[in-house]
């Protein structure tokens, strides 16, 4: 089966766009951390570290604040060593309105950046509604932030992996669904009058058609397995940098590995059956089992157990908080591009297996 040239061009174009944009679009400015572990009443000095920020060039509009509850305390900028570091002095009263505290930096280019960290505040007295020493924050300058990927704590630059890791699973699902569909087609083609189910040996062209469905189903599954492997690898790398380990006990991860094992078993079953017609029937049946497993393991089970993946185990899904317009602009083309690439690889693979089949027939 040939693949339409327009689809090939679309695939190359989309993936080229995705590669360029996912690797070159900068992250929007964000607050990284504050170098203090304890704040006390009176004078506090700390250095606020930003990421992709413009502290030096926007020295004039730079403002550092501490917020506790609804009350804001302004800091005095002591020195700005470079675009990412600003050292500040804040004078705090003895009493704060809330036991939590957030650090803010505000300027005309970066907008308002915040760092929330667990900080030792044991030397304060807390009283709700306490307002002494508060000041106002200029928050009207947040529209100037340019096009960029959202800055997420823990993810940082790793957010770019969204364009590689997630589409792998979309592509795998697409390929496995196609494999399942052709498996069903093959199985339906076998004559079924409830008891006698068999290939009709007198009708060679019908038989040949069923074997072609079987080859399609197997090739889809093989390419899907490759994408499953790529999804596991990209996920593992991402997990190392975000969650701190190559493999974490997450139902989504374990489910993905189980799906990998199930489809590997499918290929082992195929290779251990020699008769092509029997192989077509058996592997179509097993394909249905593996597909059901995939749906159970990747779509149903993770919803019952705690998962660290977005959208699972009570975590918010991507679109509810950080799949903003800049990510969408690259993510959707990435999904379509990778699915087209998967289909392209499958089309080539299927041509090869059809030709191999023909060669064997002529021998």
């Amino acid at each position, binding site marked *: 089966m040939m693949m339409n040239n327009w689809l090939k061009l679309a695939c190359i174009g989309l993936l080229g766009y995705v590669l360029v944009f996912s690797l070159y679009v900068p992250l929007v400015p964000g607050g990284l951390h504050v170098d203090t572990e304890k704040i006390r009443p009176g004078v506090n000095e700390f250095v606020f570290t930003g990421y992709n920020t413009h502290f030096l060039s926007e020295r004039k509009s730079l403002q550092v604040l501490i917020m506790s509850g609804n009350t804001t305390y302004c800091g005095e900028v002591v020195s700005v060593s470079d675009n990412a570091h600003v050292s500040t002095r804040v004078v705090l009263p003895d009493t704060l309105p809330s036991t939590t505290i957030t650090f803010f930096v505000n300027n005309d280019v970066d907008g308002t950046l915040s760092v929330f960290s667990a900080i030792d505040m044991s030397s304060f007295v807390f009283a709700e509604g306490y307002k002494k020493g508060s000041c106002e924050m200029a928050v009207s300058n947040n529209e100037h932030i340019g096009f960029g990927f959202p800055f997420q704590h823990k993810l940082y630059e790793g957010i770019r992996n969204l364009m590689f890791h997630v589409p792998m699973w979309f592509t795998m699902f697409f390929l496995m669904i196609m494999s399942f569909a052709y498996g069903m087609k093959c199985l339906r083609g076998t004559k079924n009058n409830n008891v006698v*189910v*068999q290939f009709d040996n007198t009708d060679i062209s019908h038989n040949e058609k069923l074997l072609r469905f079987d080859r399609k189903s197997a090739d889809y599954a093989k390419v899907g397995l490759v994408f499953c492997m790529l999804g596991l690898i990209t996920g593992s790398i991402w997990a190392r940098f975000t969650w701190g380990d190559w493999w974490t006990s997450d139902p989504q991860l374990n489910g993905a590995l189980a799906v990998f*094992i199930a489809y590997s078993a499918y290929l082992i*079953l195929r290779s251990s*059956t020699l008769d092509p017609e029997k192989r077509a029937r*058996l592997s*179509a049946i*097993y394909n249905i089992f593996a597909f059901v*497993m995939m749906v159970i*393991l990747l779509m149903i089970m993770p919803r019952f157990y705690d998962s660290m993946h977005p959208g699972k185990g009570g975590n918010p899904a991507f679109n509810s908080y950080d799949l903003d317009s800049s990510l969408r602009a690259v993510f959707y083309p990435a999904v379509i591009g990778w699915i087209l690439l998967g289909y392209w690889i499958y089309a080539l693979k299927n041509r090869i297996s059809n030709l191999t089949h023909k060669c064997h027939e002529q021998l």
Partner: protein
Amino acid sequence: MLQALLKKELMLELRQKHALAGIVIYILSTVFVCYLSIQVVEQIKVWGALLWITGLFTAFSAMQKTFSNEGKGVHIYLHTLTSPRKIILAKSIYNAALVALLNVFCLLLFVLFLGKGVLDKVSYPQLFLAVILGSAGLGTALSFMAGMAFRTGNNTGLISVIGFPIVIPQLITLVKATSLALGGVSFVENSLQFVILCSLLLASLVLALILFPYLWRD
């Protein structure tokens, strides 16, 4: 008809008592080896894992012969008598009961030999229910897989290769249900696991009933 098929399975089993005895000896020696190497299991999770590793391989060895101990002639004869759905239904029910029985025996041995330390807070009804439901699920899913491995030309090792991925969801849920039961939670807290186990059991039974006619005749 179903009763006759079940009776046939039972009679075949009783006629080949050595096969059943082999599995019983396998369970006994596995538990004994576990006891010799770790006298006291300190962690609930380890206990659950050991129980289900033994349980899984018990199920595999019980399924090994479920189709292959009948000759080719028997299959053709059954063909003329009944529908393939009835055959797989009978096999599933029989194997579910057999695996449940064997795993209850396995559980008894585990309680006897390795019960020290982990069974302080255990809820026995929940543990029992988990073993029964889990074994029934394993028996049902693996009956079909045994039929499939038999159809490939009786490759005996193949059943564990193709059976294992299919029972992974059941095993995950089982280990979870077992550790919850050992932790002594209330039945309501553990009920989600039982619901999942029941639905997985039903799903594999329905799939087997739908697909077995395609598998049966070649």
